[in-house]
């Protein structure tokens, strides 16, 4: 399987994961969406030098990984393209902020190093929480939750269609690269001279196909509103889960839990 095939397969396996019959998957999408947004908001609100406070925020993704039985290793593998990019955020901080803010033994730590690490961890935690939401909730249900909170339907449909379009684009890319490889045996990758025409072809074909898909939707009664059949009633657990975690997250944000725990052992 080539890389494009692998990418399509990754999307499919993520969708399969999101449809599994697990406790976390069965939670109302709105409660998971709220909790994720709240977690992200709180995580990014940590001060730039508060590394120890931020580290304990890993508790939430760790707990979701445990209860959802999702593999952390798989998550890292799936996010291997994104994580280095998000980790690169703040990579220049050590060059601009050389004030010593911490001394560990004889090692002096610059503020820039600390803020870089904080930024990296913030990025990794927020991406992981987004991954956990997608891996436990089908995209249709996330969009349904967005509609409940009155996000305009144009925006929600665009999100859904972009998600679908990614697969269409990848499929077209796979067809084109396969056709190319069959007529260019022994060649590694695609020769730079044909990049332009190949990309153009891919764009035109995927636009054609996207247009046909849209026609197909119109012919089956699509009126701008995506009806996913995801209507679900809120159960007590749908309130309990976000309330419980909301309280824990607030505690982690307001109190220096890592320092308090450290004080117990020192």
């Amino acid at each position, binding site marked *: 399987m080539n890389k494009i095939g692998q990418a399509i397969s990754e999307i*499919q396996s993520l969708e*399969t994961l999101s449809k599994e019959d697990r406790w976390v998957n069965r939670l109302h999408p709105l409660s998971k969406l709220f909790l994720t947004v709240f977690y992200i908001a709180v995580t990014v609100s940590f001060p730039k030098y508060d590394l120890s406070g931020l580290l304990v925020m890993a508790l939430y993704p760790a707990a979701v990984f445990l209860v959802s039985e999702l593999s952390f290793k798989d998550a890292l593998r799936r996010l291997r393209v994104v994580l280095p990019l998000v980790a690169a955020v703040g990579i220049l901080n050590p060059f601009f902020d050389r004030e010593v803010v911490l001394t560990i033994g004889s090692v002096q730590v610059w503020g820039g190093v600390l803020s870089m690490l904080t930024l990296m961890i913030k990025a990794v935690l927020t991406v992981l929480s987004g991954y956990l939401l997608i891996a436990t909730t089908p995209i249709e249900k996330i969009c349904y939750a967005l509609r409940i909170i009155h996000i305009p339907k144009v925006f929600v449909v665009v999100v859904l269609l972009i998600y679908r379009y990614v697969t269409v684009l990848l499929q077209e890319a796979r067809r084109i690269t396969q056709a190319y490889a069959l007529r260019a045996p022994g060649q590694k990758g695609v020769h730079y001279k044909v990049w332009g025409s190949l990309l153009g072809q891919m764009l035109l074909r995927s636009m054609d196909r996207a247009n046909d898909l849209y*026609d*197909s*939707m*119109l012919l089956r*009664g699509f009126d701008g509103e995506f*009806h996913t*059949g995801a*209507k679900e009633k809120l159960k007590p657990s749908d309130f309990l889960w976000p309330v419980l975690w909301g309280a824990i997250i607030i505690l982690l944000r307001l109190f220096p839990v890592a320092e308090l725990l450290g004080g117990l052992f020192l």
Partner: protein
Amino acid sequence: MSHVHIDVENLSFSYESGTPVLREMNLHVSENESVGIIGANGAGKSTFLKLLVGLNLNFTGKVRIEEIPLEKKTLPKIREKIGYVFQDSDSQLFMTTVGEDVAFAPRNYGLPEEEVEKRVQEALEKVHIAHLRDKSIFKLSGGEKKLASLATILSMTPDMIFLDEPSVALDPRNRRNLIRVLNEFGHLKLIASHDLDFIWDTCSRVILISGGQLIADGTADEILRDQALLEENGLELPLSLTERK
């Protein structure tokens, strides 16, 4: 007297470049008729079907579907009556699983979830793919995709169905299955294809399009046995009507 369901008068269509695709087409199709639209590649069959469902309204002439004139404001009403199966199933299926795709139309028409469930099951059973309900669209074979596409429109319980090259990518078994399903569908059918054997098996009436014009309109027996007419318009006798040497 049978009720006219599709009424086409002087239908002409050209691309923006000015290239004419269809010229002065006239057609009247009654309820329960099964009409094959035949013609060589590029004759205008697919365009004709697409115009009838309003995918392009830049035509001249008149089209009425069940007495409703085809225009922008009547499109939702007309489309509710018609099930359209695309030539390329990849252009039709877009939800994650077969079941979700088949449920797409009934949900759009605001049916309660129990009714959606019932229609999905019935549609899948009709085309014998109930076992594929939870299968990912991307993992279907060509034949399964075609049957799934048909199920997606059967769940709409349409008054009429239009099919564009339905026999493409079907193995003999799936082909027979599709022929059986279509013959069981008692309502109006328009089937565009250059697979004349398929048309022979499914249609009682045939119209022949060539160069964007309606050349002949008659019973399947008259048109599909007329070797001179077919060859004159870039077609050949159906294999099943050809004497084996």
